[in-house]
Every structure is written in structure tokens, then in C-alpha cells.
């Protein structure tokens, strides 16, 4: 395998994955990874207050030490199987760019957190073309690891798709 040189991503896709530390977690038996820098904390599943009139993947809001934070179910958003909550189910609290500048909290429900891995340039492959079967808008790359392949996703792009106004993909491009 040849080393992947950073390329300019397609205009509508997220930035391609950069080497570094990733938090991996399970969504319906598949492993996903997000840059660890985007993650604020991981908390146990707590009561989620549903909010009317929101799309089905928005589970609602939780109280995180006095802050009201939206919780999204990525399994619903990605069209994966959604089983009942279990004792490994937890909430990953990330932060993403706010439209008005700065950051805003953004939490996702996951079927369990795996580990933090360090990915080198050589570990990352560009996002595959699934032929439209899977929404590749949020995928930044694939990570090959001893235990299998994990899909690297861009939470910024995921969150932006939920924004009050439908925005095109974020421009978090780094050279």
C-alpha cells in the first residue's frame, strides 16, 4: 500500500481523515471512529427528554451539569439497526462548530465505546465508493486495524446536516 498523501477532498464531502488519535465506538455492531479532539467526554446513558417536531434521529435533550445538550442517534441517521438500549449504551459528548461562531455541544448515542487508537497516515484509506448504498457524506476515510476496519466519520458534517438551515458540507478543510 502506498502512503496516502493528503488530497483536496471533493467539494461536497467532508475533509479526508488526518492521522492522529481517534475514539472508536460501536454503532449496531459496526465500528466507527471520530477524532478524539472533537470529543469532550463520555457519559452513561441518562434520561433523554424528547423534543416534539424534530426528525426521528434527534433523540432529544439531556442535562449535562446544567447545560441542555441535544442528543442524536447516529444509528437512525445512518439507517442502521436500532436495538434496545443496554448497559454498554452510552453518550459521547462532542463539540462542533456553532453557526454563530465558537463551538456547541453535540451528543450522540452509541452502542458502546471501544478504545482510543493512534492512526498513522498509512492506516487510513480514502472513503470508498459504496455505490450509493451508504451515505458517504459523513465518511472521511477507513482505518485498517488488526481487529478489522473502522469507518472514520466527520461529526461536523453530521451535525451540520441537522442545522436549522440545511447547509452544504462544512469547510473544515485542512491542507
Amino acid at each position, binding site marked *: 500500500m502506498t502512503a496516502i498523501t493528503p488530497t483536496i477532498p471533493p467539494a461536497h464531502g467532508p475533509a479526508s481523515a488526518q492521522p492522529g488519535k481517534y475514539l472508536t465506538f460501536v454503532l449496531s455492531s459496526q465500528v466507527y471512529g471520530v477524532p478524539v479532539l472533537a470529543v469532550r467526554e463520555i457519559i452513561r446513558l441518562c434520561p433523554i*427528554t424528547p423534543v416534539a417536531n424534530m426528525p426521528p434521529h434527534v433523540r*432529544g435533550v439531556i*442535562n449535562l451539569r446544567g447545560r441542555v445538550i441535544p442528543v442524536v442517534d447516529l444509528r437512525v441517521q445512518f439507517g442502521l439497526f436500532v436495538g434496545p438500549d443496554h448497559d454498554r449504551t452510552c453518550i459521547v459528548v462532542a463539540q462542533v462548530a456553532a453557526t454563530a461562531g465558537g463551538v456547541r455541544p453535540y451528543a450522540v448515542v452509541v452502542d458502546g465505546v471501544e478504545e482510543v487508537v493512534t492512526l498513522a497516515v498509512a492506516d487510513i484509506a480514502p472513503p470508498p465508493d459504496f455505490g450509493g448504498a451508504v451515505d458517504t457524506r459523513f465518511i472521511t476515510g477507513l482505518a485498517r486495524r488488526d481487529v478489522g476496519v473502522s469507518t472514520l466519520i466527520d461529526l461536523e458534517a453530521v451535525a451540520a446536516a441537522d442545522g436549522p438551515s440545511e447547509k452544504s458540507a462544512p469547510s473544515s478543510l485542512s491542507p
Partner: protein
Amino acid sequence: MPPPPEPASDAVRSLLRRIGLELAFLDATAPAAAGTLAELLPSLDETFAGASAPADLVAAVATARSWLALPSADFASRLGQWHPWMEEAVTAWERSGVLPDWPADLPPLSAQTSPPPPAAGSPVTTGRTAPARELPTQDVTVLPAGWEPELMRLFCAEAAELLQDIEQGVLVLETAPTDAETLATVFRAFHTLKGNAAVMKLVVLQRLTHELESLLDAARRGSRVLDRDAIDAVLSGADIVAQYVAEANSQLDGRETGRTIPLALPAVIDRVHAILSSPAAAAAPLAPPPGTVPLPATTPRASVAVLPPPASTPTPVNTGPDSGSRLSPPEPSAAAAPVPAAPVPAAPARPAALSTGSVRVDTTRLDGLLDLVGELVIAQSMVVQAAASGDEHLTRSLAQLRGITTDLQRTAMAMRMVPIRGAFQKMGRLVRDVAVQLGKEIRLIVEGEETELDRTVIEEISDPLVHMVRNAADHAIEPPDVREAAGKPRTGTITLRAFHQGGFVIVQVSDDGRGLDPARIRAKAVERGIVPADAVLDTRDTLELIFAPGFSTAEQISDLSGRGVGLDVVQRNVERIRGKVEVESAPGAGTMFTIFMPLTLAIIEGLVVSVGGQRFVIPTLAVRESFRPKAEALATVHGRGELVAVRGQRLPMMRLGQHLGIEGAQADPTRGIVVVLEAGNDRRCILVDELVGKQEVVIKPLGEMFTGRTPFAGAAILGDGRVGLILDTIPLVRLSRRSHTETAA
């Protein structure tokens, strides 16, 4: 060195003042525009020659003329230093003192420099033909070269405060022109303003405030009584400063940066000069202007005006008002009369409660602190709940903790609280202006202006208040003759009152004018299609129709007791801060508007209800009543949905569970609770499963993901730590604007 003869001294003073004025408008990049200056300097020369002035003064004028004849790049800044020196030097000459040292960074005085002949052919006189003082307005650049946004903002903020002091003070002076304390307050305000303007290098403002300061100084020393003319001059001067500050603020916000605005500066400055040079009209105390008795001194509440200006707060630049700029004009004493050294006004004596000093804090920090404290209070109550079992020691410690957090919360809230005074103060001027304009006699009584509330609330309430007071002065109060004919005192009274009541701040605007006529309001509302002709309305409902959008338009205001214009806007503004407006009126006797406002926008009192196991918060202010309906009170009307009879009226009922798509909600209304919501004149019932209780909640924003997509105004952390959503009641009620007038069959 002999002092100058009196007339020469006056002539020199007057010339210097005009030169100062010209300097203020001097455009450094266009030396040709200095034509008027080139005309004034020779006159100064002639006057000096006739009065055997000291050689250095003559030389200084010659030097200045040489700069003008061959303008160098910095001739404007040179003249800027030259002018104060001249003023000082002339003062010294008048007192037979020693002339001040020539500024070291100016080119040395050269008596040899031959002044160019003041001929018409001189290149410098060809620029401008009309002297500035004859122009009604002058285009002014508001942001000086090299301005710093931070400092400029500070300047504007402080200027706004000072302007308020000035305006309040001047209104008091109108009735009590010799009130020493008020004179001192207004004088100090102008003095500080001038100092700040000098630091910011806002030469135009500096000139203007200097002139006004001189006028007030004369009044303060008793050499001149402020008559109507002088007061008008001061007010129009303050208006110019306000205009300037408003424009600067707008440009600071990035709107049309660099734009120049026309200001009536020369007119005002000339007016002040005219007043100052007219023979001192000492001691003739002026009659109050026809029509107004603003803020009578007998009303103890009205004494705000004599509160000292916020002089103890740091001026924008901590070098003090007058330092830091060589452009500072001399102390006002020089301009007024040759009296030995006017002392810089001493720090005002102020009530002890106010003397503790203050710090300017960025409001976002304050908001952040308040948020944190709100969270602390909730976290604390969660700990208390979790630890409810047993351990006496823990319980005691927790009680102590609760005491501390409660105090902390109160203190943090208090930091955001400001007296409503600021919003009330502009009303004095407003009422005065309307009264003078319409030839009415109106007295404004202000009570409770020390009542404190959240500054955000005050900002929101300010415009509605102006609206209501203007309406009252404009339309409700009758002309004096009409009042007399109706057996009322000629002078109408408008009362502004603020007070606390049950967790709310209440502001009342009342007048003893015409009052509202329910029959005519009803007729108008029917005519405009706001209510059906057969609607059953009690008096309160009828009066509240004046808040309906489209009830009144500008041309109707005078036929219908002059009310209604913009009142829907008033109501909307008040509702935005989760308040409400009520109106009471008796025809012929007057009208009273009562605004209920939350103490703060951060916390509301909420009714917690549950639907299908979920809990929601309804702001208490929007709840009129709640009850368990009897079967016979319910009805279903084809095409109208469910209705509930409430006090003889059938109101539409909405099942909250259905509306929000919640499963497991109580299906049988007679086993649930009907909550009657109101927003202005509209009412609507919602059906919930049960009432959980009342709770004060800290309002949390839901975040951008939910903005505009949900029927909620925000979220709150409930006692058990879960998030409860706060219903946005106004759109909920307004869903059925027309149907509430459905008559009970």
C-alpha cells in the same frame, strides 16, 4: 505689562473663539479651506496693534499667519496647539501675568516672519466663501483618525450616561434655574464630556462641549441666569452630542463607516456666544415654559436629576479627563470672566450608598456568571435530594450550603439589576417636548425609579414605555381649555410608577385624560373585522381590543380617544420578555396601563404539567386559570374541534399530548386538567394530564439545532435533574386568533 483695555480684551476673546470654531472644522488635508482663518488672523493682529499687546502675542499671530500662507503638512496640528496657547497667553495678558512658554514642539516664534498681506488675492482666501458659522449645519466625520474601537465604545457609553444627567438636570433647571447642585451636576457632566472628547481627539465635540461648559460655568457662578434661550441652547447642544454618539455607535457596528453627518454645531455655538455676550440678565428668574411643569421639585422622586454624574467611574482613558491631549481647551474660567483660577469641580458629595465605587464589567461575563450560579443552585438541590436519607451531619452541611448558594444567586442576580431610572429619565424630556409642541400643560410624576430589574428587561421595555407616554401626552391629555371646561385642572398629569409585586416588576403609565370609551372601541373593532358584531365581551375584553393588530391606524387615533396606534407593537415587545400589559380606563377620568414584567429574563416562574409521563413548563404569567372540566362544559363543534366553556365563553381546547405527538396522554378530558392560556386578548385552553407544581426555573436555550423548529421557548432543569421543555405559549394561543370570540350558545 499693562493689561488690555476692556473692549480690546473682549474683541480678542471673541476672535479667539471664532478661530477655535474654525479650527474645529479645519480639514487638514485641504489647506485651501482655511480661508476664514486667514481672514480672522489679521483682525486679531489689528486688535493687538491697537491695544499694545505683548510682543510674543503679536509674534504668535504672525507665526500662525505664516503657517497658513505656506501650509505644511502639519499646519492643522500646529494650529491646534497654537490656539490653546493663545488663550492662555491672552488670559495672562489680561491679568498682567507672565506669558506661558511657547510650545516646544512648534517651530520657534519668529517676529521677523512677515505676514502676507491680507489681500483678497492671497491664495489662502480663495477656498471657502461662506464662513462656517453661517452654515446651518456642518458635515462632520464622527470617528477620528486612528480611533480605537474599544476606547471609542467606552467613550460612547459614558457619553450616553452623561447626556442623561445633562438632560435630567436641564429639565430641573427649567423650573429652578438657580439650583446650585443641579447646575454643578450639569456643568460637571459637560466638563467630563469635554475631557473625554479631548482624550479621544474628537475636536468637534470638544469645541461644542467647551462652549456649553462655559455657559453653564457662567450660570454656576451666578453671573448669568439660565433663561429659556440658554436652556434651549444647552438642550440642542446635548442633542448634537447625542446625534454624534449615535452615529459613532452605528459606525462602530460597521454601518457606513467613515460617513459624515451634518450637525447644527455652528448654530448652537453661535447661540451660546450670543447668550454669553449679551448683557448679563441676572436674577430674573424665568417663568416655566408655557405648558410644562416637568419634574416639579416638590415631587421627591423627581430629584434624580441632582444625583451626581458617574464621575467616580473611570473615564475611558485613566489619565483623567483633561490630560493626555494638548488640544484640551483651557479651564472654563478663562472664557467667562477674568476671575482668578476656577477650581476644578470637586468630587460631588453623594449619598453613602452610592459611594462604594463601581467597575465596568462586560455583560457577557455577567451573563456567564449568572448561568453558572443557576447551575450551582440546581446541582445543589440535586445533591440535597440524593442525600435525603439519614445522616444528620450531612443534612446540616447541606442546609448551610443551600444558604450560601441562595445568597450567591441573589448577589449574582443583583449584579445584572439596574434601576429603571434610565428608562424613566427620557420621559421628562419627551413630555416637555410634546407639551410645548401642542400647547398643553402636562405634569409628569415619576415614582419608584429606583426599582431594579434586569438590564435586558429595561432595554426591551424602553421603547414600549416611550410609546405609551407619548400616546398619553399626545392624545389622552386634553388641551387646557377642554380640561377646564370638563371641570378638571388645566394641567394634566401623567404618572409613571414602578414597583415590585409578587416576583414581578410592575410599571404603570397612567394619565388623567380623556379615558377610553368601551362603546366606541367595540364599534371600531367590529368595523375593522376584529370581532364579530354579536361578540359577547366584558369591559376588560373590550378595552383589550386596543392591543389587537390593525385596531387603529394613524388617522384614527384622534377619533378614538387617541389610543391604539402601535399598541399591538407595545404588547408584542412586552410579550417578548414574557411580560403582559393590561389596561384600565374610565371615560373622562383617565387611563392606566399596567405592564407586568419578570424581574429577569434568566428565570421564570413556571407551572409544571405532565402529559403522558413527560413534563412541561408553562410560564405562569401566561396562565389565566386551570381546572378539571365537567362533562357538560365540553362540546365538539363540527369543523372547530373541541371547545370548553369557561365563564360563559367557549374557548377552543387543544390536547397537548396530541399536539406534541405524545403517546399515553389522558384521553378523557374530565380526568385531566384544562389550563387556560392567554396572550393579550386571546385565550386558548390546553388539556394536560395533571399539574405537577409551580417552580422557578432558569431558562436554558435549546440550542441552534432546535431553533424555529419546535413549539418550545427553551428548556429548564427540573428538580430531579431532568430537562423539562418550556412551552412557547404565545404561538400556541395565537393558533386560533379569531375563534376565541365564539359566543356561548
